[in-house]
């Protein structure tokens, strides 16, 4: 199989604060046989801040990346950060939907001798790309260390599920749950899987932010998870770095590691913790490796419903 190369937009956060994510993305790409080629001289996507203050420059800022990627001949671009993903996706989509905005953005791009025709690029999130293009079969096939006995709370956060549904549901997606099960681990019934991590609220109102972080962590632990799996550096940062502060505020003692999904894949592929950037996290995740069992744990028996209980609604597959 020829090695496929994807045009890649890593985003600022992966350069430093969440370098572990970048490291594990690269390691997993290599192990799964695809390449991530950065957009030449890409710039920041503006996060949510730029759109808040100056709409048109914000679109232009993002569009510079799209234009440079398209100039490089790309037809799709992959982003591992949900915020970057959404900004790229939304800029392309809005330029397509609103011709006036398209004209204005291209007028701005013209000042840098660039132009972008919306629709040229398909903007994708790394998670969706791996699930669709690599596929569960290949992941299963390449698994060298099935993650038997581990329980993960699949945390999707906001921006991959909303506003557009690029996975299977805006409310309760299941694709990453399925991926976790393919890798031998168990995905817990984690109801707050798309509840917001607080985003930049940690910088603006600690009370608000820690409240949100605490709810997610509590729900993940209550669901029986050994670790939370994230797909966005902002989510990882909020849940990991601020976990202690949230504990302080609510008088709790949660200590649950927060992993990137490529770190989970990497573990299953048999990569070493060092190759996956372990050690940058605040809540230590190395202990998880010792929890991996050599064989699948016995299937938990479905709790027997008492005789007098009424049947549950039949759920479609």
């Amino acid at each position, binding site marked *: 199989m020829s090695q496929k190369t994807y045009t890649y937009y890593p985003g600022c956060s992966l350069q430093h604060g969440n370098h572990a994510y970048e490291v594990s993305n690269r390691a997993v790409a290599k192990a799964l046989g695809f390449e991530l080629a950065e957009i030449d001289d890409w710039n920041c996507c503006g996060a949510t801040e730029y759109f808040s203050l100056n709409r048109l420059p914000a679109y232009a800022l993002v569009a510079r990346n799209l234009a440079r990627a398209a100039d490089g001949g790309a037809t799709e671009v992959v982003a591992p950060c949900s915020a970057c993903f959404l900004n790229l996706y939304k800029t392309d989509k809005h330029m397509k939907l609103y011709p006036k905005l398209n004209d204005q953005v291209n007028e701005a791009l013209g000042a840098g001798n660039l132009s972008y025709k919306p629709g040229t690029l398909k903007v994708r999130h790394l998670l969706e790309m791996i699930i669709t293009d690599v596929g569960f079969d290949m992941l299963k096939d390449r698994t060298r260390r099935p993650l038997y006995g581990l329980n993960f709370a699949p945390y999707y956060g906001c921006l991959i599920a909303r506003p557009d549904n690029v996975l299977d549901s805006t409310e309760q997606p299941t694709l990453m749950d399925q991926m976790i099960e393919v890798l031998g681990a168990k995905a817990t019934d984690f109801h707050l899987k798309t509840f917001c991590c607080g985003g930049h609220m940690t910088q603006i109102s600690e009370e608000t932010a820690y409240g949100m972080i605490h709810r997610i962590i509590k*729900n993940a632990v209550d669901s029986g998870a050994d670790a939370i799996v994230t797909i966005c550096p902002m989510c990882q940062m909020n849940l990991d770095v601020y976990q202690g502060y949230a504990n302080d505020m609510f008088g709790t003692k949660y200590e649950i590691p927060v992993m990137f999904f490529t770190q989970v894949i990497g573990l299953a592929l048999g990569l070493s913790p060092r190759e996956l950037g372990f050690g940058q996290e605040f809540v230590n995740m190395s202990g998880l490796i010792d929890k991996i069992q050599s064989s699948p744990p016995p299937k938990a028996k479905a709790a027997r419903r008492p005789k007098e*209980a009424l*049947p549950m*609604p039949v*759920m479609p597959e």
Partner: protein
Amino acid sequence: MSEQRVGVYVCHCGHNIAGTVDVEHVAEWSANLPNVVISRDNKFMCASTGQEQIEEDIKEFDLTHVVVASCSPHMHEKTFRNACARAGLNPYLFEMANIREHASWVHASDKDGATNKAKSLVSAAVHRVIHQEPLQPMQVDIRPETLVVGGGIAGIQTALEIADAGYHVYLVEREPSIGGHMAMFDKTFPTLDCSACILTPKMFDAGSHPHITLLSYSEVEQVDGYVGNFTVRVRRKARHVDEDLCTGCGSCWEKCPIKVIDTVFEAGLGSRKAIYRPFPQAVPKYPIIDVENCTYYKSGKCRMCEKVCPTEAIRFDQEDEILEVEVGNIVLATGFQLFDPRRIPNYGYGRLENVFTNLEFERLSNAAGPTEGKIVLRDGVTEPESVAIVHCVGSRDKNYNSHCSAICCMASLKFAHLVMEKTGAKVYNFYIDMRSISKGYEEFYHRIMEEGASFIRGKVSEITDAAHTPEEEGKLILVCEDTLIGRPRRVPVDMVILSAGLEPRADAQEVGYMFGAGCGDTGFFTERHPKLDPVATVTEGVFIAGACQGAKDIPDSVAQGAAAAARVLATISKKQVNLEPVRAEIDESRCSGCRICNNMCPYHAIDFIEADGVSRVNPALCKGCGTCVAACPSQVINGAHFTFDQLIAEIDGIMVDVTAGALEVV
């Protein structure tokens, strides 16, 4: 051709047309079109003065043809044809130009464009109309039998009204028993009388009426023909029980060893056997065997029901039966389906065990239901201490169904009453707007408020078990904004009832297609006119009644069922109906006998006459689609009212400005 004298009438339709199209100019301009002897504009052509104008002009100017430029022919073609006929002009010498639906209403922002288009459409009609010929409508006899599809309350009402008038009705029902959704309900709002108590007598009447043939557990497969003479093929699915022998004694289902969850009648809360009667008052009373779950059909063993049947009525080898019935009219009363709340994952139905649907609650509260009327949690024993009722589930929401389901406000009030009466629990109603618009409904709302139910104005955002505080642990928490306070609220309760909305049946589109009834953008069957003809469809002889036409409650369904019956009885008493004479006819003197048309006809209406070497159309079978007309290589098939000459003239007329520059304002 003798002299043609055309009258043109351009309608203002009040402001509807005149607000956009310069109608006076169009009328003035039309006066110069070929053969036009009089051209007028008029405020309302469909009003009696407008019609009388046409009649007077026909006499005074000796008009040979008439053109009215106004609304869609589907609206008023009949009106103007009748006006012509009253003045002694054959109605088929009339033509209409649609300058309202197709011009003024869609080009409001382009007045010049709309006026130009109106002129070209009038010109098209003027050019076409002189080629039109007098035609005689075909008269056909109306068969007095009627087919009613769907045995819910609307269908039962229709069937009884017609049968009581002495005419025969075939009542087809898909399920093993008639009764529909109403048979599952506990109480009915606002009077709180027992649903079964008022329905079962009607079911019994329908089942035993000498003029009603009840075809339960049956489905219509094919419909042929036209008003007055439909031929309908019905599949009677095998019950595997001989109805002539069965007495409905119940020995078979008592002894049947296989228990199955009943997802239809008991909404998944109760069970039935593999041979079963859906409910005790079912009509007809005979059971059916559920082939998918019966041991005999899986392993060839058991036959318990056969052993215990005292009349030897079990027929394992019974097969589906195909029945053909001839009817003059059809009434569709196929009802609705409930919105599936699993489509809203944030409401947790299916995941959170104490979230119930409205239908589940009806069964819980029903004394004949799985808990014998005890309102309990999913564990089957615990009485709830607090219950939330969520309105507008899947309704008034563009992500699901944008229409209002019309019944949920009142049904939710009824649930509130039943919960408070039977359990004393605290009840919260979460609503967006309270709609209590029919007789006695507002009073009912006031009564429930007085009984102590709480009302929170806010669409529920989410139902969760992720507790925030110790008080929330183990509860279902409804998250919403209390919009009257303007603050977010979290309300912990033991039980939630989702008032899921009414939506068109999943197969409404297919069913509508089979009967020639279209579905509107909400998916319900479209009535001929939303205000003035709510029970007819665009297809003559096909009527609609009940919730298949739009979400509605029991009184409205009954009223519409009776209205449909009245319409059917009116056509039956007329005995005959006029059909459009739009038919194909072959000029046999010029037919080369190539037979290309024979295979074109979807109705097999064209036969090749060996003896004469030509093809011939059977006018009783022809429906006037014109496919053969377009196919004939010798152009010798005449499609009445849509002839080659008429359509070519219409094209030439519609392009008159482009070819001759004649549309330019003089």
